[in-house]
């Protein structure tokens, strides 16, 4: 893309997408009002967005055909009060013609990908902090609150500060038993919980090119755990192939210019990387799995917008096939979407999870955010493939949450204690 304008200089992916959507020749630090391609809200944020929309005097939406609501965080509803909020969402979606993804459709972020709503080069806002996930398919996608979402739905645009960019290059070959989640946790540990605040990440390198889309999505998903506004990657053939049959729009991926200005650059070689674990109660409290091996666990969670995709379920099944979950351990599995669930059924993955002693939930967020489907007890340890381990996150401040890859979670559920998956592969 060549931008008109006398100040045009080499640009990052963020600068290009925000320039193209604002009609300005924008650089890091500039404030722009940009036109949105898609907006999304989930059941924890949509009710407030609906109230804000009505407070703004909204009586029509500017995002017709480009807005979705998803019921995923408390789905199916565990409480009468939540059922009422879900009813409010259905009523609003009907009234204004928004796409409603009801109970069982899946985690909002996977639905946005499966249905071809978050496209390469597009600008997407979602009222959920992990909206940054779609950066893996080259969308400038960022989390906002309910009121910003309402303003976008009503007017079709929103203001943005064009972010500075941190360029992250990941080279090397992933060793056996080590996965995209381990790369992501390693990055959070090194960059820390606020090391990329206000910045966009541009993540690339040979190791990223080797990963499938599922693994790339895991890495972009964790961008916000470093404070980042977006977790962008360039599109390649794997990215473009994913959208075959999912959209009729012409794809317009965006690459950074040679010589684009980066605020910071980091390089990693993951050839020697081992499984990583985030210890309680912060995501950047990272240790190699060896340091926490033997920690007893009461619950394992495989799923969420971080690790509920097919590659994740397959990696867990590799370890669980023919084994049993240890006595006293609950394994909760939630595929990320209906599409993932259907394929997992075809491949026999759901059978393995069920036979080994696990409990398979409907596609959705499961117990990640502490509303239902597996709230831990006092003093219990949980090992989870999710993206947050804050105290109380899963609904009980007296429990401890460890974050790891699906393989590490599976191996730990079989042993009843945190276990290096390389021992059982």
């Amino acid at each position: 893309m060549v931008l008109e304008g006398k100040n045009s200089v080499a640009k990052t992916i963020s600068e290009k997408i925000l320039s193209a959507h604002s009609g300005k020749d924008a650089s890091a630090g500039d404030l722009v009002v940009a036109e949105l391609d898609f907006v999304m809200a989930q059941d924890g944020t949509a009710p407030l967005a609906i109230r804000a929309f009505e407070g703004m005097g909204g009586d029509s939406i500017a995002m017709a055909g480009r807005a979705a609501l998803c019921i995923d965080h408390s789905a199916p509803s565990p409480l009468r009060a939540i059922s009422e909020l879900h009813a409010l969402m259905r009523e609003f979606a009907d009234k204004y013609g928004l796409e409603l993804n009801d109970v069982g459709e899946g985690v909002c972020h996977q639905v946005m990908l499966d249905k071809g709503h978050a496209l390469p080069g597009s600008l997407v806002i979602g009222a959920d902090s992990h909206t940054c996930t779609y950066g893996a398919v080259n969308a400038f996608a960022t989390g906002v609150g309910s009121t910003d979402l309402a303003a976008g739905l009503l007017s079709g645009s929103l203001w943005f500060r064009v972010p500075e960019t941190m360029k992250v290059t990941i080279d090397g070959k992933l060793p056996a038993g080590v996965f995209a989640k381990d790369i992501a946790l390693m990055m959070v540990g090194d960059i820390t919980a606020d090391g990329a605040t206000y910045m966009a990440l541009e993540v690339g390198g040979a190791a990223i090119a080797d990963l499938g889309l599922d693994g790339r999505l895991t890495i972009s998903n964790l961008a916000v755990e470093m404070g980042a506004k977006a977790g962008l990657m360039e599109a390649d053939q794997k990215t473009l192939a994913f959208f075959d049959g999912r959209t009729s729009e012409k794809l317009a991926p965006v690459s950074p210019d040679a010589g684009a200005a980066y605020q910071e650059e980091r390089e990693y070689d993951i050839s020697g990387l081992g499984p990583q674990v985030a210890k309680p109660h912060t995501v950047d409290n990272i240790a190699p799995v060896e340091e926490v091996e033997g920690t007893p666990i009461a619950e394992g969670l495989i799923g969420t917008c971080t690790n509920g995709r097919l590659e994740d379920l397959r990696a867990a099944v590799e370890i669980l096939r023919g084994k049993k979950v240890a006595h006293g351990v609950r394994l909760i599995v939630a595929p990320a979407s209906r599409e993932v669930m259907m394929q997992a059924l075809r491949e026999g993955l759901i059978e393995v999870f069920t036979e080994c002693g696990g409990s398979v939930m409907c596609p959705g967020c499961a117990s990640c955010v502490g509303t239902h489907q597996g709230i831990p007890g006092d003093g219990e340890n949980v090992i989870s493939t999710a993206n947050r381990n804050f105290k109380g996150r899963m609904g009980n401040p007296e429990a401890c949450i460890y974050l790891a890859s699906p393989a590490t979670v599976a191996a730990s559920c079989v042993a009843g204690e945190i276990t290096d998956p390389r021992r059982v592969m």
Partner: protein
Amino acid sequence: MKGKAHRFGDDVNTDYIISGRHKFKTLDMNELACHVMEDLDPHFTKRLKKGDFLVAGKNFGCGSSREQAPLALKHAGVAAVLASSFARIYFRNSINNGLPALVCDTSGIEDGDTLEIDLATGRIKNISKGSEIDSRPLPRVMLDILSEGGLVEYMRKHGRLAIE
């Protein structure tokens, strides 16, 4: 405005401000206000007086995009949050809901200090310590949103966001 400082540390996330086990249930912010900060300090709402300030270190409001976090703080009576830095979604949400979020050096502020804040100038007087600090100026668009009383009121009046 004048009030007491309630001191917290770094990386106060939105789950600590208002837990997911409460926020998914209701749109009643007065109910949520009874639970703010309870996982960090179960007695916080008892100690808080209307008009007090919450003072924190870096990365305040990290985590989820839940707007209930600034809303519940505001309904609990917090007049402003001061931090050395904010997570970006929280920062926008706070301004959008008319709860001032001031970026400043909070290292010299102790729990219980009496502060006086002039929002127009961004100047913060620590009356207990006899010192003064400046907060970082907000971009114009955020000042416009604050001066309308929040983004709902801004949009009701202007219909869409504008810069300059």
